[in-house]
């Protein structure tokens, strides 16, 4: 927690000052002031927390509850927990679900074939900028050499690059699924220093590699482990992606790619 705070304060608003010394002093002053304000807000909030919770327990007409009340029912009904598809069924259903919401799927044998598949599409679309997560599996795709026309960036691999802007101007994003679930046709991606949330969001076209062995059946298979690991094991963002960005807000007319990627490929490996 201390780490996060220090950093939040450390990278505060840049206000375009010229003289380096003065700017640094000014920024440090502003940072200190901001940190003091946050600390003050926190003090007020902690005091308020007590009265807020006491107000709730008074309304509920019981003394403040400080021990875990046992849940009479937690999570999905029992019959659901044993529900499972065979590996082949999972792939079929995942693909059917993914396509039913406007996504594309393909099955490839291995990373080599996946790399060739992406390279072909990239050339077809005349992609200029590709951003991929910083992972060995994605390095093995060999896009740097197979798509020489495009600039391939590896997320957060250099300092002094505005990575969010880089992802925003990218034509193609390439990510590796941490998990996938067939029943809803969903892919799970977890954020990390080498795995940007922007890579699966900002580019126009998105390729998601789904190793077949990471494909489960039910949503609970991804959610329950998130409880088990506890809050310290969770990254800042866990994103469940179920197809291309879409909206029906104009006359119920389906539009694909409203804010996020409009063309989304799930490549099932193995």
């Amino acid at each position: 927690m201390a780490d996060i705070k220090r950093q939040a304060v450390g990278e505060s608003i840049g206000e375009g000052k010229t003289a380096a010394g003065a700017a640094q002093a000014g920024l440090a002053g502003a940072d200190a002031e901001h940190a003091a304000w946050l600390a003050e807000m926190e003090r007020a909030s902690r005091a308020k927390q007590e009265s807020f919770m006491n107000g709730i327990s008074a309304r509920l007409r019981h003394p403040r509850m400080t021990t875990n009340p046992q849940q009479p029912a937690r999570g999905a009904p029992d019959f659901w927990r044993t529900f499972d598809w065979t590996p082949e069924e999972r792939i079929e259903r995942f693909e059917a679900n993914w396509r039913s919401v406007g996504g594309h799927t393909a099955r490839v044998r291995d990373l080599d074939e996946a790399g060739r598949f992406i390279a072909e599409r990239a050339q077809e679309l005349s992609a200029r900028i590709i951003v991929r997560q910083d992972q060995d599996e994605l390095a093995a795709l060999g896009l740097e050499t197979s798509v020489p026309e495009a600039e391939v960036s590896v997320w957060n691999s250099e300092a002094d690059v505005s990575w969010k802007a880089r992802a925003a101007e990218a034509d193609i994003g390439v990510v590796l699924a941490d998990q996938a679930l067939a029943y809803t046709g969903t892919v799970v991606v977890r954020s990390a220093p080498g795995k940007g949330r922007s890579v699966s969001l900002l580019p126009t076209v998105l390729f998601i590699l789904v190793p077949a062995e990471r494909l489960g059946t039910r949503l609970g298979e991804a959610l329950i482990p998130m409880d088990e690991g506890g809050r310290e094991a969770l990254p800042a963002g866990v994103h469940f992606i179920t197809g291309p960005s879409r909206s029906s807000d104009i006359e119920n007319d389906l539009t694909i790619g409203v804010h996020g990627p409009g063309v989304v490929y799930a490549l099932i490996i193995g």
Partner: protein
Amino acid sequence: MSANKGKSSVKERAELALNDEFLVKAVKFTTERLRNGKKNASAEHGNWDEWRERGRQIRLHTIAHLDYYLNLFVDNARANGVHVHFADKGEDAVAIAMEIAQRKAAKTVVKSKSMVSEELHLNHALEQIGVEAIETDLGEYIIQLAGEMPSHIVIPAIHKNRYQIADLLSEVAGERLEADTTVLAGFVRKKLREKFLEADIGMTGCNFAIAETGSMVLFENEGNARMVTTVPKTQITLMGMERIIPSFEDLEVMATLLPRSATGQKLTMYMSAITGPKRTADADGPEEMHIIIVDNGRSLQLGDPEFQELLNCIRCGACLNACPVYRHIGGHAYGSTYSGPIGAVLTPALNKNVAEWDDIANASSLCGACYEACPVKIPLHDMLIYLRRRKVETGNGKAVETAGMKGFAALTGSSAAMKAALAIGKIGQRLVVRGGEIRTKLGPLKGWNSYRVTPSLPRRSFRDRWEKLDREIDAKRPPMAPDMKRRMERIVQEREQGGGGHGGH
């Protein structure tokens, strides 16, 4: 901000809506589509009632122990590095959000859909201190440009057609845009892209907050909520104090119920679980994250046996789509942020001003379709009755209606008075009866006879025929069983002693 705040009652606003042919068609079409989508999705998934019951149990339990779970959430969120704030009233939440915006010297705030912020009229407040607040959900963006309120929880711009939308967006573009969905959505994508990248603050609502990990969860289809929580350096989340569920395990139930009930989807395109600001080494995500926990009338429902379940609501909009009244009059007729059956109950409940919103509770046929549709089984139709009762009890009924009801009670309470009144009525009605029907819209009959016909009083009424009927039946009736006779006699005796508790309503 409201489209027709000028009109004071639901009835007046509904007449306005009923006259707007497109609105009526659009609302019907959309709600039909959503309702069928939900029916198909819940049927396809199977065991729907078991899932609903699970959903209800989880929500009931969490709300009944809200002091524990909310406190746990707050402690965990703080441990994740989130700055948590509490707001008793809407104004407090607005003040906190404005202070953060000022501290950050923010020029632009990008927002993803949040019913709480609609409830607080936050955009207006931000504008007044010179901060541009931009709604980024396509439908919300459209109604923001039009300066209106959302007319549906899930599809806010349900009442606008693409020509009206093209007009609004053309003004922003400074050139004529074709009234084509792809062109219009494409323009919004480009326009809002710029806004996401330059915004100082991202502001969101919260679908669910996970007590055990301090995470917040957002459901959406467009990706704008992900944008808002990924790109700007500061994130502010407004969260109703009742949004809590204990665990991610419980989220599986909510994720099963919410999208299917809202739009008939198996899952929304994006479901994001956000646990604190970005980690030190991450290259995106907010550096500073605030969660403002809002009461604003919610705690008034706690401990109230008739209304506590209102807090179980997961804001799916299924009750709107199921409601025959909503389908006819649309959301704006309800005159508040929340419309449809949930709005009819929630608005007066949150505002604790039954009197002011009295006519909303009457905009319902009490058919119970809302309860049937509700994924967490909130008995909305019962609550509408409680609300009507409270309105009368607090003396906020209509004076004429109260007098009328008193008169009716006096008449029906005495057989002689009833007899006399009917006799007078039979003579008096000769002035207005035509062919056995009363069609005049004069005086008190206007409301009823505008859409219906009142039958005339018959020459010989049931009361007149009763004595003879009773004698005829009595002759054929077997004698009453002795114990039943004794029981009946006891009841009559008790009633005479004034102990009867029936017929009080």
